[in-house]
């Protein structure tokens, strides 16, 4: 029963040095976020894919099946409009956003001391992987992030390589096209197509003069618009086309591989 002073001192020294080591090496990671608000459709979708249980709020657009890949899941999750007051009331510990849009709201939130993470929109599959990893780490779900990346890579690898190379043009309303360096350019290349766009606007007439082998357009049949009307113009009816759901074209994420799969068929 004799507690030697020596052993007591030794215990204390070990505990003390352990604490010093831990604080010196900062071994404790930044606490993973538990309540997350997303203020942007693209980060909405990443958040729902990675950590739906941590959602404090999404944007209302996430529930729109025409725009969002995760619309069904998002239907059961809370939403908020991007006002600083509404976000603060939710008391999140992390806010996800993109570098553009809602800038004043984000500035206010930062001033209030909230942690705001802005992720730039990925433009190719490498950037999609990087973004997925970064967000997964911030949410403390790195394993899930890696699983998503593995699934995406498997899908990409399984895409058939076409024997002849076909040219394709991603044609958006008002004649905008997806030029080199854009996300859709990466999708086209992953599908084995050659991007016929040089990055410039292409009107109806120019399209007819140099028609691509495949016209890639965004499909939103339940919403009429002048833009989609242009796609139905009788003059270009003969150009083969593939319509991609806008949910796959608006935001980048692991699901972008589905777009490439649609085109490679």
């Amino acid at each position, binding site marked *: 029963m004799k507690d030697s002073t020596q052993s007591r001192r030794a215990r204390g020294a070990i505990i003390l040095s352990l604490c010093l080591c831990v604080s010196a090496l900062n071994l404790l990671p930044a606490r993973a976020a538990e309540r997350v608000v997303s203020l942007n459709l693209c980060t909405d979708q990443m958040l729902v894919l990675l950590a739906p249980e941590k959602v404090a709020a999404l944007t209302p*657009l996430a529930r729109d099946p025409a725009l969002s890949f995760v619309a069904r899941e998002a239907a059961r999750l809370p939403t908020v409009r991007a006002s600083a007051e509404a976000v603060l009331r939710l008391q999140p510990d992390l806010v996800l956003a993109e570098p553009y849009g809602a800038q004043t709201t984000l500035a206010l939130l930062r001033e209030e001391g909230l942690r705001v993470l802005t992720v730039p929109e990925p433009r190719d599959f490498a950037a999609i992987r990087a973004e997925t990893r970064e967000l997964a780490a911030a949410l403390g779900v790195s394993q899930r992030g890696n699983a998503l990346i593995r699934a995406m890579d498997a899908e990409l690898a399984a895409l058939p390589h076409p024997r002849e190379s076909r040219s394709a043009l991603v044609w958006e309303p008002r004649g905008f096209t997806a030029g080199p360096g854009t996300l859709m350019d990466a999708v086209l290349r992953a599908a084995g197509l050659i991007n016929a766009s040089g990055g410039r606007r292409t009107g109806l007439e120019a399209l007819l003069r140099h028609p691509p082998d495949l016209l890639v357009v965004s499909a939103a049949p339940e*919403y009429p618009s002048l833009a989609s*009307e242009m796609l139905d113009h009788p003059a270009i009816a003969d150009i083969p086309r593939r319509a991609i759901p806008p949910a796959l074209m608006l935001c980048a994420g692991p699901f972008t591989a589905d777009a490439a799969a649609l085109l490679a068929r």
Partner: protein
Amino acid sequence: MKAALVAVLALFAASLLIGDGTFALPDGLILWQIRLPRALLAVLVGGGLGLSGAVLQGALRNPLADPGLLGITGTAGLGAVIAFYWGLAQHFAPALPAGGLLGAGVGAVLLLAFAGRAPSGPSLILAGVAVSAIAAALLALALTLAPNPFALAEITFWLMGGLADRSLLHVALAAPPILMGAAILLRLGPGLDALSLGEDTAASLGVPVARTLHLAAAGTALAVGAGAAVAGAIGFIGLVVPHLLRPWLGERPAALLPAAPLVGAALLLAADILVRIAPLVLPLSAAPPVGVLTALLGAPFVIIVARRAAP
């Protein structure tokens, strides 16, 4: 009159040749499916606007009357937007010009309600400005509320007009109402002449004043409503055309009616050609909406006319 006809035909041919700014000879598909509808619409819409401007100025005895300034193209655009973005036109294509017609009809009814009580120039124009402003605001609201989240981005088309990327279907939708409206308006000549001496004098000459005004409103709604539904709100052509004609043809309202649609067609063809050429000579990324050009031409006109009218 003959000069106007020649001008229209020349501009029509030029429009077919110019296309999107390149001067290559078009092949059959481009010519028939893209350039022909565009040129035909310019003739129809411009003609309808020019004629209705001449009739409105005669009926209201006001040199500033114009379907745009008086809010009729604005309400037409509102009707068309509702028919379009809520899917009515998807299921039944003629719903689009019908929406424009209904909207224009409402605008014309409002106009007559004001005109009956306050035929003096300034108050009529003020009423038109009010209707125009309300219509534009409601149009923006409708686009914001539309089920399509991209609708609001298309507001420049509806407010400033555009003839690009229209097809023969649009021509087929717009032509019957415009031609019907023109047929009604062209027969109002003698009534408008009588009205230039005042409503009492016209009535005493046996002219059915109320019916003449109603026919002017109905004809305008037909001639302008369908055009606004397929080409957006293009302003100032109705205002400018009679003023261009008066130095040549005199000021009698009936004398202006036959030439008014021709000059209106020529003006819109010319404006449409210019907007396609503009990106070649100015640092523009794309052709501006055609309403920009007509407004640049027409707004100074308003100032000149208003100054001349003021003592």
